[in-house]
């Protein structure tokens, strides 16, 4: 229980850090902290396989990707002036109300945790076997749908990125909308845009 409280505090602190820190790199590192604390929580719950996956996939692969994107885009933490001054306090207030509401629910309806023997029996030692069994029986539909979801995400992302490259389909550029056969105008606009993208942060 003590371990859980410490880990939960770490996770919440990391989460708040992700939202509040100005520098994107700092926010990403705060996210690493949250993900690692979550992995340790899995260990304390005897879910060893899940913990390992959490470290390798989330804290490892996905975070590296995040950092790569941040570095490549060269995003700096400059602020671009708040147009809506009331928005920030309102957001904090809404978050505060939500947290308070959930805290009230928690204290009103606390339940004792199941005993260690029950957890151990359900998880089967925390190995991959039990997870695989559940994944391919009870949640087979969900497993297949996640596959479709990933396919969808890849197609959507590629279609958005690919058309921004002007040399692939210049005749379909937005600048040539009124006169569809003006590749020069379209690719010109495209070059400017890519330039902005790369050097925008300087």
């Amino acid at each position, binding site marked *: 229980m003590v371990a859980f409280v410490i880990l939960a505090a770490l996770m919440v602190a990391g989460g708040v850090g992700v939202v509040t820190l100005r520098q994107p790199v700092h926010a990403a590192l705060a996210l690493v902290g949250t993900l690692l604390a979550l992995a340790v929580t899995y260990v304390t719950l005897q879910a060893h396989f899940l913990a390992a996956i959490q470290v390798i996939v989330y804290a490892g692969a996905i975070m590296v990707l995040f950092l790569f994107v941040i570095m490549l885009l060269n995003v700096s933490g400059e602020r671009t002036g708040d147009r809506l001054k009331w928005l920030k306090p309102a957001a904090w207030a809404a978050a505060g109300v939500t947290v308070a*509401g*959930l805290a009230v*629910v928690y204290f*009103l*309806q606390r*339940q004792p945790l199941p005993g260690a023997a029950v957890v151990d029996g359900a998880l089967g030692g925390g190995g991959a076997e039990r997870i695989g*069994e559940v994944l391919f*029986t*009870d*949640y*087979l*539909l*969900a497993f297949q*749908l*996640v596959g*479709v*979801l990933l*396919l*969808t*995400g890849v*197609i*959507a*992302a*590629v*279609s*958005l990125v*690919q*058309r*921004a490259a002007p040399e692939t*389909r210049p005749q*379909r*550029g*937005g*600048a*040539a*909308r*009124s006169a*569809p056969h003006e590749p020069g105008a379209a690719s010109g*606009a*495209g070059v400017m*845009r890519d330039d902005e993208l790369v050097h925008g942060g300087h």
Partner: protein
Amino acid sequence: MSFPGVLDIDWNVMAPAVSLLITAIVALVFGLSARDSRGPAAVALIGVLTAGIFAVAHLFSGNESAASFGLRYLGDVPATALTLVILLGTAMAILVSWDQLERGGMGQPEYYPLMLLSALGAVVMASAGDLITLILGLEIMSLPAYALSAWRTRDRQSEEAGMKYFLLGAFGSAMLIYGTALLYGASGSFVYGAVAAALQGGNLTLLATAGGALVLAGLGFKAALAPFHQWAPDVYTGAPTVVVTFMSVVIKVGAFAALLRIAATVFPALQPWLLTALAVIVALTLVVGNFTALMQRGLKRMLAYSSVAHAGYLGLALLAANHGGVAAAAFYLSVYALMNAGAFAVLTLVTDASDHGDDLERFAGLGRTRPGLAAAMAVFMLSLGGIPLLGGFTGKVLVFQATIDAGHVWLAVLGIATSVVALFYYFRVIAYMYFRESSHAPHTFRSTPARVAIAVALVGTVLLGILPGWWHTLLSVGPRFLAGY
């Protein structure tokens, strides 16, 4: 290791979704070598029709309690009927996009596959019998919608629409997932029927109600219920009109299909204040949608707020989910799909290739310059406003009747009062078309597939208005099948 009954796959139930998935992949591969976007459009249309044939065959097979994967994927009458509505909306959107994509320079080959995948997600949402399937269906439906909103290359407005939709949609998804986690924590199950059964005797209803509130908010984002409607006007205005034709129908049907099922099964087991909150949300949606639509000059923005208002009328049916509200909502969604897609189809033919020029002035004198289009638009506006003998009227009557049966008389009165307000902004379009002189020459852009779509919408709107009985009888099965147990 023994496999329990969760692997019972009824392929009749799965057939529409599987056909959509296969067609999306075929259209994607075919699109790589296609000369323009009309070939993939034909492939997509064939796929949607195939899925529709499977759905109709299943609907009339009389196997009303069919399900796959345990109770995680349902093939009951509401699911199949709403699947048909989704397929209808998708077919209309394909027909409207047929010539319009090339005209607007938006003919990238991924357009139709993404549209089919989005429709697949909506079908999964309509058929979902548990919360996990619902979340995955919602994401499969939403991701292509985000990308399609930003489809117009190098158009700031379109990019802004995609970005805004993505951020707010992700926020809504996060709330839905959090709510699902709380519901699971309180009941130990994801399947709607089992969640409701576990909560009946339990003492964790407060926790479950907090989860239900978050689920309601998350789905409210997709359904554009106030105060979660903020994205709708900007996305509808910025996104290409052909995409809005698709989104305004399919995403709304998907979101309400899921909301209806949850409102009929899980919500009655939760604490009653959640239903009070839902009533307040619905009332707010009716007022905000209708009164803001009054102030719009651009037709796309007006139709965006009008779609918020229609979400309010559908919300009335949610409150009456166990008093005939499901059949009323399914009927309303069928009519809404026809008349709304029809109105957007007319809009694509009247506005510029870049979708600009949707101002009311553009419709001045349309009754003289393009009488066919103007007459169709007039019928859609009258139906959206709820004039008798058209489908929109029948849908509203059914919804109000269900609301009164469920004991929410004041909400029904509010609904009728706001319908009268709505008449004003729908009539204004007709007045511009017939009683104003046009200041500039109208577009002469013509598209036979778009005309087919408008004709289908026109016939459907009138048919559901004068002969509503057969479709409503088909939809009116008891809540037993909907509950999924």
